[in-house]
């Protein structure tokens, strides 16, 4: 009896480690979002920063869908392909093997389609809006926000939507790193 109670307590203790996973995620406040999405640059005018941003956008193969010089707004769009992660591929392979085994090899054809799907990359549509505004006489700030649509393509069927949302913070860090480089090139007049 004591042994069972001890096992039960150990189980509860171990299970409690999973609790943070179920915790309600805090929604980022407007200020938190702005902190991630905004960076300040020392430029002579809004146009200069806009030109810098446009160069970075072109380097990244984005297509401009809206440009407003008065409001210093640019909206761009890009379509790209991203390979499925190793974990997803492993899942597909495990499923295919189990299915083939369970059907005594008859389901190998279906399993083969799954394996092909595992190697079909995700199709991503990414829209980005850039907003440049004056901060002081010598400083301008640029703010970007994104919307990323991920489609899970399957062999022989149309692309189905998998997720919609903002890109992760790494995207903003990468973008601003490229902007820093562009700022350096701009200052060197290269």
């Amino acid at each position, binding site marked *: 009896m004591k042994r069972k109670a001890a096992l039960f307590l150990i189980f509860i203790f171990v299970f409690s480690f999973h609790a943070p996973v179920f915790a309600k995620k805090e929604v980022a406040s407007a200020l938190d979002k702005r902190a991630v999405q905004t960076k300040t640059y020392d430029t002579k005018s809004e146009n200069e920063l806009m030109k810098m941003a446009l160069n970075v956008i072109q380097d990244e193969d984005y297509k401009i869908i*809206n440009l407003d010089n008065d409001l210093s*707004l640019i909206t761009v769009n890009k379509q790209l392909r991203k390979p499925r992660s190793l974990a997803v591929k492993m899942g597909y392979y495990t499923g295919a093997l189990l299915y083939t085994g369970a059907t005594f090899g008859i389901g190998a054809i279906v399993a083969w389609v799954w394996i092909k799907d595992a190697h079909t990359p995700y199709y991503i549509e990414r829209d980005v809006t850039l907003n440049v505004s004056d901060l002081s006489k010598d400083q301008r700030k640029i*703010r970007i926000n994104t919307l990323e649509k991920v489609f899970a393509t399957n062999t022989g069927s149309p692309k189905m939507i998998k997720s919609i*949302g903002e890109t992760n913070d790494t995207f903003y860090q990468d973008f601003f790193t490229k902007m820093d480089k562009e700022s350096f090139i701009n200052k060197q007049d290269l």
Partner: protein
Amino acid sequence: MFKKIILILACFSLIGCLPAFAEKESATALEIRQMQTRTYEVKNQKQLMEAMVNVLQDRGYLINESNYNLGVISGYKECKEKRFLGSQFVRYETSVQINQQNNKSYKVRTNYIKKLMDVYGNPSTQKDIKIPEQEQFYREFFSDLDKSLFIEKQGI
């Protein structure tokens, strides 16, 4: 006798359901306009438009159309919303318009539509377009605009 009582009780319970079938009063054009409009006193139109763009960005919208001279900004947002069972991809589209009232006073009007999206990510048919007429929806937008104007003034 027992059957009669059952019949009377059934009638009563049906009468209780009547309010559910009552025709809901739709808001008049003036009421809708009142919900969608606020007046702001700012230095210039650009300050207000920049604050509006920031509010839309805060709320996850992307700008697909803007015209400074006409004071118009259009944006859209696509997201996943929870429903009773499962979830649904939706697309919100908004237009914000600014009209100058006098020297420093500007009238801001906004409207939204919500479209349900199919599994392929396309906004689905006309019947799925819903107009969020709830006052709360617009109140939140204008509250965010107030905050944004404050933040802009503080230079944050």
